[in-house]
């Protein structure tokens, strides 16, 4: 069996940038986006979140089943939204990792078949770098300046990257060693009796709460941890601390001050995320921080990022929220960067790689 590419024709210079369709299925969102260079044309997202709600978290098999059912309608809707035909595309891009293996495979299988049927080159790209790539789609037209530190936080990942070049120079500074930050939001919401997904629920519950009421632990920030885990995160201890605090409080017969617990928990997460991100900016001498991932939707995370970055003289970039959560447009945007730089398409035999490292922007 030989590894052939979907099509040998690689568009190089295309007016307005290459027209690329991106497919994203790494977690519970089936995303299909279309961009022309750095211009967003369509961003269709079909989420299976409601189906996961009764389980209190993303169930991989449920997500993968939903991707299969959502794929063709999402492709159809994205092309209609962009007002382009498949034949007009210059390339197709797909997330090949990291993410949930069974979920990734649905996108990979679909993208390969679509590329072959339409005769288009196919680019397998890195989901995390895709979150950074989303920034090029900002409508204000300001260019993403590099290098930048990128803090990517969602229910599936919590990663700190040093991005020197979007296409071929990305370094992982640190990541969570246990739960993702978004998972911590879900788990704490659950123990406060709030529904899934936890992020928006905690945000709502925290209104009027005192963020300094309870001093929850900041994972991996003690001097002894900082040596080995300077840029790594840990949220499982925080989740346990909240659970213990709530239990103790209940045992003492008091009503749980939900607003204070939510606000204090949220503060602990936002604090540790931004302390580490800004430490990276300072250590590396990089005056830019880019946020990505669904947890960016959290009001306090955004607010604290704005405050801390201003104080530190760091430029803060947050892509529009619809491009922060997992989506196909960011994958298309990264694919368009690869095409513009004259990269060859990925070989047809790449697989889904649930642990694809960020140093691999494109699976080759």
């Amino acid at each position: 069996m030989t590894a052939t590419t979907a099509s040998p024709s690689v568009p190089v210079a295309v007016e307005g940038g290459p027209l690329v369709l991106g497919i994203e299925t790494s977690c519970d969102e089936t995303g299909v986006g279309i961009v022309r260079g750095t211009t967003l044309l369509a961003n269709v997202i079909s989420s299976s979140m409601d189906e996961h709600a009764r389980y209190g978290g993303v169930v991989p098999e449920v997500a993968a089943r939903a991707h299969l059912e959502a794929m063709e309608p999402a492709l159809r809707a994205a092309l209609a939204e962009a007002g382009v035909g498949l034949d007009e595309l210059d390339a197709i891009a797909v997330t090949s990792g990291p993410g949930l293996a069974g979920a990734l495979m649905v996108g990979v299988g679909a993208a390969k078949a679509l590329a072959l049927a339409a005769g288009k080159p196919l680019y397998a790209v890195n989901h995390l770098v895709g979150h950074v790539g989303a920034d090029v789609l900002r409508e204000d037209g300001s260019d993403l300046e590099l290098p930048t530190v990128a803090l990517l936080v969602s229910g599936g990942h919590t990663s700190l990257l040093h991005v020197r070049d979007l296409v071929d120079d990305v370094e992982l500074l640190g990541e969570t060693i246990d739960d993702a930050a978004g998972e911590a939001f879900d788990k704490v919401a659950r123990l406060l009796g709030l529904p899934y997904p936890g992020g928006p629920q905690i945000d709502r519950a925290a209104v009027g709460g005192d963020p300094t009421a309870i001093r929850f632990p900041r994972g991996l920030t003690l001097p002894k941890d900082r040596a080995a885990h300077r840029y790594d995160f840990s949220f499982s201890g925080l989740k346990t601390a909240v659970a213990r605090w709530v239990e103790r409080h209940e045992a003492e017969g008091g009503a749980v001050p939900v607003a204070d617990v939510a606000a204090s928990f949220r503060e602990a997460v936002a604090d540790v995320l931004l302390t580490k991100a800004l430490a990276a900016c300072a250590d590396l001498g990089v005056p830019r921080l880019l946020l990505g991932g669904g947890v960016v939707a959290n009001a306090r995370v955004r607010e604290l990022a704005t405050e801390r970055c201003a104080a530190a003289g760091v430029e803060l970039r947050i892509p529009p929220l619809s491009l922060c959560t997992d989506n196909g447009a960011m994958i298309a945007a990264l694919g368009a960067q690869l095409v513009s730089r004259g990269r060859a398409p990925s070989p047809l035999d790449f697989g889904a790689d649930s642990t694809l490292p960020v140093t691999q922007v494109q699976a080759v």
Partner: protein
Amino acid sequence: MILAIDTSAGSAVAVVDRDGGVLAECTVADTRRHAEVVGVLIDEALRAAGVAPTELSAVVAGVGPGPFTGLRVGIVAARAFAFGAGVPCLSVGSHDAVAFERLSGAAGRSVSEAGGRLDEPLVVVTDARRREVAWSAWAGLDDDGLPVRVAGPALVRPADLDEATGASSSSPRTDPDATVVSAGALGMLAERLFEHGRAFAADEPLYLREPDVTPSAGPKKVGR
């Protein structure tokens, strides 16, 4: 011409033609690398057959039963290819293809010689993982040369297979360890369904198992 894809066991892709038969069939027996190989197999089958996507009249997906993760790759690939080529995607049971291949090709006689009928019982058995097999029972071929299903598909432990199928272990049965379902047979069965105006399967994967989940039981105590 039809492009047929089945990943219910290993991965198989074929290009078939009603009159010309199976023009090309490419397979990989590995039951864990569906996402890696599906594109290469589609590409190779089309090249070997010398057929362009625009020449196809339909794509056929084998909808199982089969282990979830791999099964889905072939179905989504079939749907996406059909979408990309602007042709319909149709579903055919993977066991139907196995029964069709065995009943119309086996026993050393063609269907036409047998007067369009082959009254031979068959139990199709495929691996379903987790110490279970998927089975279906077939009575033979009908007047159109199409396999007649009498039971299944369903899951059972191998030890309970005789009881479930009501057949003795000496009656004709397919090999549960077979690693590929023929995409050529799947495609030719689809051609015959078309020819006789018969119904295709529902556009749903035959998972036969609910997702492996335990609904949240509320907050757990963590203790001190």
